[in-house]
């Protein structure tokens, strides 16, 4: 209180003091006058006796001040006023800083959320993903996920392990929900016992599944996600205990999970218990993801060793049916290779994010170099003032403080503006970024981001402020040392800092530009790859799943699907329709299995695993997949359950040398099945994205005799994706018509995952296109900043050396030669920068290697083109000021004092 009081009464105190002193002087003067001096003499003497009135008054005031703070505040006021006086400079700097710092903050916010805390579970360091290596399993064990677990593996590992507090397996699927509103297909995650215990997130309403509910004969229950609870039930608290129909199975709702809860990286609407049948399970069925929570003190290596002995136990405990050899799986050489779950989730997103972070960091550095150059010019114009202050006794620290105050103030204001830009930038990044970022919807500007902004703002301010300080804040510097005078031009040393900055800028810009161009070429290469379908923008896809409880007879299922095809064909504008178990690039492989080729032997080992897909007649036509040889399936083939297959071109070439040679050849899945005849060959399809090789594929009809059952049984793909080729694909009108067509066949079948092939194709390119856009923007900004930088330096050099130019001209130099002098200096700086930049780029690009496709990191075309472009830019940037040099009038410059 006293403090505040003092602030308000300070004015009054100053006044009192002033009055006191003035009156004191007056009295003394009067006294002296009485003593006989004249008014003037009295005044003079009184003042001399008093002392330095102003100084004493100031010293007295200090009783009411905090000197350091006052001095700082005064400096600040002065700085702000000075910045306000040069609005052009201030605006440029603030804009540059706002964009530079803002971009960094936006990217940091994403990294903060995605990379540093990707898993919102307690003690997520203990969580591991049960990754299994299986080098002998061919394509079944993908590089990214390894061999997924089977349910029997879960039982064995869970019962006999010594390393885990809890473990479980899960799988994502879809299901139809009926009985609430319209029939709807929802995303489901099927969890075994142990998953919820491992993740340790309690339900926000109700409870987890109990062990009884995980028994296949136990009560049928379901849990809701928070989002689904809000959407379908309006957040009704009485939802616990209600019954809903899931795939025509009534299930009781027992719990609701909290907002934002996912199983690892999977969003879901419903959770279903896996209800593993311990009695009837078989070895096979490798489709589940496994996670576990390590016991405290157990390392991943120990867990690996523990579980690897369980592989044999697993093979001993289960079988695939009478007459099969459980130890056959030894061929696969299954071994645990557990990762921390964080690692698994981040995966290859981290490389993209770090590249982007480095990119925006570099752009900020380039921007700081530019600003430092600008500040150097300003400091130079203040040099006279600074020298005088130094001569009057200001210490180096005092001068440095003033210069730094200006730059830090600029930094802080820039940082403030940057938060606005960061907010916008985040919205943009989240909307267009790679869709598989974990916790994407939780990314926002939180306290840590703001702290980061503040830190970067202050550091940038100190960074670009340090350079002028280093050059100009010297105590007692001789006045105007080395400045331009009538007969001399400023010394070389003056320009060196600026030149060094420009060289650094150029080097960094080169690195960015090379990266950007390489990404552009990667993208172009990716787009060149023929994906295996044509004109994706006009192919509409959607899934329809027919639950067994709705229609169990496979033939009727197929007839239903056939009817749907017919109804859709009747819609005006539709040129072709088909369906298959999975469409390309949809992150879903229907099946992998071996195929034996008739006439081929596989000494000592099994044939490699091949991708299977189950298709209907007309599917390839709808997708635009070219028929390379033979013919497509017909509906007769389907209903007649003919033993026929189609194969991909790669498969045909591998085994018989060419597509044509494949027709008529026979294949089968194993010795117990009849031979199937190859009737057609289609072009390769890049089902895993265009940056991956197209796997050799075997196509079966969607309804076929089951190869694995002892008794005659028909298998059917009851969940299929339809592909409809129509010029109106993607419009809401058309989608409604499709829904009507499906409902006219069966009113309980919802459409799900409605997207065009273009959407799917675009998503598969998302990672590359995102990186590309970021790098392209950064490269462009770097180029622009470099041009500005070079322009500034040359321009300034010209203005400083005007007199010298005048002298040269007067002595007979050619104007062209003079212009060339400046352009040459610009080119020299650029050359130096490029040399450094090329070396740096070749090193940096190695880090980005995983993002490139179809192009070498040291691609010569890029490494030659980019420097040429930069050189051209430097030429351009220096041309204008150089022309000004040529336009100097020697008479004027020599006359000017």
């Amino acid at each position, binding site marked *: 209180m006293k403090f505040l009081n*003092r602030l308000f009464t300070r004015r009054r*105190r100053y006044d*009192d*003091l002033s*009055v*006191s*002193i003035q*009156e*004191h002087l*007056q*009295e*003394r003067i*009067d006294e002296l006058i009485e003593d006989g001096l004249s008014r003037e003499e009295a005044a003079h003497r009184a003042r001399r*006796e*008093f*002392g*330095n009135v102003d100084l*004493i*008054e100031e*010293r*007295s*005031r*200090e*009783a*009411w001040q905090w000197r350091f703070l006052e001095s700082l505040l005064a400096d600040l006021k002065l700085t702000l006023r000075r910045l306000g006086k040069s609005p052009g400079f201030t605006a440029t700097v603030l804009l540059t800083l706002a964009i530079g710092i803002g971009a960094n903050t936006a990217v940091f916010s994403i990294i903060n959320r995605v990379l540093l805390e990707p898993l919102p579970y307690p003690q997520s360091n203990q969580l591991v993903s049960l990754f299994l290596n299986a080098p002998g399993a061919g394509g079944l064990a993908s590089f990214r996920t390894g061999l997924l677990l089977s349910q029997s593996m879960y039982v064995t590992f869970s019962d006999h392990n010594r390393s885990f507090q809890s473990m479980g397996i899960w799988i994502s699927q879809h299901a139809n929900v009926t009985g609430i509103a319209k029939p709807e297909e929802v995303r489901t995650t099927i969890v075994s016992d142990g998953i919820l215990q491992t993740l340790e997130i309690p339900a926000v309403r109700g409870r987890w599944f109990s062990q009884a509910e995980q028994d296949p004969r136990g009560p049928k229950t379901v849990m809701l996600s928070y989002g689904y609870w809000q959407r379908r039930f309006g957040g009704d608290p009485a939802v616990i205990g209600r019954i809903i129909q899931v795939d025509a199975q009534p299930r009781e709702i027992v719990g609701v999970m909290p907002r934002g809860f996912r199983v690892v990286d999977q969003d879901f609407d419903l959770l279903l218990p896996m209800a593993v049948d311990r009695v009837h399970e078989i070895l096979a069925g490798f489709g589940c993801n496994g996670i576990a929570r390590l016991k405290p003190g157990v390392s991943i290596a120990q867990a690996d060793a523990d579980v690897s002995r369980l592989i044999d136990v697993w093979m001993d405990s289960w079988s695939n049916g009478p007459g099969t050899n459980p130890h056959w799986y030894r061929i696969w050489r299954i071994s645990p290779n557990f990762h921390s779950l964080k690692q698994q989730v981040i995966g290859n997103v981290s490389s993209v994010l770090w590249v982007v972070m480095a990119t925006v960091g570099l752009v900020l550095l380039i921007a700081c170099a530019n600003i430092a150059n600008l500040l150097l010019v300003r400091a130079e114009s203040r040099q006279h003032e600074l020298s005088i202050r130094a001569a009057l006794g200001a210490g180096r620290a005092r001068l440095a403080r003033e210069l730094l105050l200006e730059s830090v103030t600029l930094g802080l204001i820039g940082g403030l503006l940057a938060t606005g830009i960061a907010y916008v930038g985040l919205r943009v990044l989240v909307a267009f970024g790679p869709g598989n970022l974990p916790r994407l919807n939780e990314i926002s500007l939180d306290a840590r981001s703001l702290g980061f902004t503040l830190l970067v703002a202050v550091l940038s301010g100190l960074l670009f402020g340090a350079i002028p300080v280093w050059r100009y804040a010297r105590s007692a510097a001789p006045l105007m040392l080395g400045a331009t005078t009538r007969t001399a031009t400023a010394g070389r040393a003056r320009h060196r800092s600026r030149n060094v900055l420009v060289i650094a800028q150029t080097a960094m810009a080169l690195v960015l530009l090379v990266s950007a161009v390489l990404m552009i070429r990667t993208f172009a290469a990716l787009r060149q790859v023929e994906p295996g379908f044509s004109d994706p923008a006009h192919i509409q896809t959607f899934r329809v799943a027919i639950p067994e409880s709705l229609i169990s007879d496979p033939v009727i299922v197929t007839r239903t699907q056939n009817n749907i095809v017919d109804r859709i064909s009747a819609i005006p504008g539709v040129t072709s329709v088909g369906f298959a178990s999975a469409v390309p690039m949809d992150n879903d492989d229907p099946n992998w299995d071996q195929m034996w080729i008739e006439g081929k032997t596989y000494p000592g080992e099994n044939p490699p695993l091949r991708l299977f897909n189950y298709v209907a007649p007309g599917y390839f036509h709808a997708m635009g997949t070219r028929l390379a040889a033979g013919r497509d399936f017909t509906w007769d083939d389907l209903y007649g359950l003919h033993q026929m297959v189609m194969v991909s071109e790669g498969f045909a070439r591998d085994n018989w040398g060419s597509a044509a040679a494949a027709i008529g050849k026979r294949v089968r899945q194993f010795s117990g099945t009849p031979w199937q005849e190859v009737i057609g060959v289609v072009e390769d399809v890049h089902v895993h994205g265009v940056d991956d090789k197209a796997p050799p594929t075997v196509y079966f009809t969607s309804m076929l005799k089951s190869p694995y059952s002892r008794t005659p049984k028909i298998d059917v793909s009851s969940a299929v994706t339809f592909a409809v080729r129509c010029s109106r694909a993607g419009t809401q009108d058309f989608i409604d018509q499709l829904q009507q067509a499906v409902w006219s066949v069966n009113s309980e079948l919802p459409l799900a995952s409605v997207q065009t092939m273009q959407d799917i194709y675009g998503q598969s390119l998302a990672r590359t296109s995102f990186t590309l856009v970021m790098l392209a923007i950064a490269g462009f900004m770097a180029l622009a900043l470099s041009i500005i930088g070079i322009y500034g330096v040359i321009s300034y050099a010209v203005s400083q050396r005007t007199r010298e130019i005048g002298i040269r001209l007067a002595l007979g130099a050619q104007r062209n030669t003079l212009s060339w002098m400046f352009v040459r200096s610009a080119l020299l700086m650029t050359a130096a920068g490029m040399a450094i930049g090329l070396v740096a780029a070749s090193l940096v690009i190695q880090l980005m290697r995983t993002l490139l496709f179809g192009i070498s990191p040291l691609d010569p075309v890029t490494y030659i083109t980019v420097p040429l472009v930069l050189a051209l830019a430097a030429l351009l940037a220096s041309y204008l000021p150089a022309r000004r040099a040529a336009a100097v009038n020697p008479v004027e410059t020599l006359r000017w004092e």
Partner: protein
Amino acid sequence: MARNPKHRDLFPGALEIMVLKSLRLKPMHGYALVKHIKQVSDEMLQVEEGSLYPALQRMLREGWLESETGVSAKGRPTRIYRLTDAGLKHLERESESLQRMFAGINRVLAATS
């Protein structure tokens, strides 16, 4: 701040004590204070304005004095300083310790052996 080598500086705190004591007798403005001290000390002590005014402000800040608007001897407006209770207490404490110090110094200076 003695400009003349013949004059010596007062020890720290001396000026404050004398100002407080003088103001205890009666509240005064700055010029009167200077004249009073000069007079009462028989011209042995002379206060310099350069130290007086800063000291006055310091004492105001400490709360030993308060200032109010008043009129000088010549009828012009000025600020008159008066002692506060806190100032009084400080004065009594300090003058007591000062007396002891002087007594001690005197004894040392008077000692013959």
